[in-house]
């Protein structure tokens, strides 16, 4: 049985968290210095948590894919598929917000910086995986190929994460954990932490929703295979 109350409650908490975060970011968090993009720097409080959610969904895709290769089941395949789909969605969010901020901070929408290039590659792998799952059928061979592809997509994520430390480029480090100078105002830190919390909730809900959908689709396919012909 689907825990409907839990899911509805989860959506309500997520919506409220996002509403509070938007109000806080726009009304309380101070503007950053012009070199960081000034007012456009406020994109940061959603851009970075969306990238983190992409990592999270990539991790789920990796675990689901590895489990499917080890012991094939509809459940592990559904989570792998859901992980790739959600990673693509969060990747899209990162890819639209980043260039708009970069336009103000760097003067250009896009540059072939190591972080941007490796992230684009990673997102394209997840998009390719989603397209593959949509058009290549649901046979065991296709699922195994998709699982291997899912593992490859997630294997690129550590390269994305450490690309700034390894090869430099335009992309800022900012966070102290990444060797940057950190956020210099407590409200900025609070907004970022709230952003991480909100995106974690959103990622968990989207993953659950898509995994349930993938599982329902797999069960429907099996039921259609087993069902007798109308005139048979």
């Amino acid at each position: 049985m689907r825990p409907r109350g839990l899911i509805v409650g989860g959506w309500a908490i997520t919506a409220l968290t996002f509403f509070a975060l938007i109000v806080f970011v726009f009304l309380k968090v101070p503007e950053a210095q012009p070199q960081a993009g000034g007012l456009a720097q406020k994109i940061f409080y959603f851009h970075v948590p969306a990238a983190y959610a992409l990592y999270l969904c990539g991790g789920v895709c990796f675990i689901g894919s590895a489990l499917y290769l080890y012991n094939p089941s509809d459940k592990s395949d559904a989570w792998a598929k859901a992980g790739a789909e959600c990673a693509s969605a969060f990747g899209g969010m990162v890819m639209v917000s980043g260039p708009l901020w970069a336009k103000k901070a760097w003067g250009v929408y896009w540059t072939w910086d190591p972080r941007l290039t490796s992230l684009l590659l990673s997102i394209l792998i997840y998009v390719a995986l989603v397209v593959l799952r949509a058009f290549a059928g649901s046979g065991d061979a296709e699922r195994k190929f998709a699982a291997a592809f899912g593992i490859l997509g997630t294997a690129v994520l550590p390269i994305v994460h450490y690309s700034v430390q390894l090869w430099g480029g335009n992309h800022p480090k900012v966070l102290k954990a990444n060797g940057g100078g950190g956020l210099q105002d407590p409200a900025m830190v609070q907004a970022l932490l709230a952003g991480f919390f909100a995106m974690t909730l959103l990622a968990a809900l989207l993953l659950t929703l898509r995994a349930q959908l993938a599982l329902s689709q797999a069960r429907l396919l099996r039921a259609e295979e087993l069902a007798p012909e109308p005139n048979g």
Partner: protein
Amino acid sequence: MNQDKPAIGTAEDRAQEFKAVTGGNNETSSAEGLLITAYVLMWAILMGFLFVTFRRQAAVDKRLSDLERALPKRPDA
């Protein structure tokens, strides 16, 4: 000098012809515009993703109920 001149200039001060320049002003985008565009696009992606998910779930549910109706009824049911 030019202290009594309005800040915005007079009609005569405005450009009456266009010339090509190099290294012009790069400030073509306002921070407010970029910020709002980023937020709108991010939410649009999320809403689109949710819409597709619910539409697909509804299609699967409909197909399942069609399948249940098509199944022959068991005599003891």
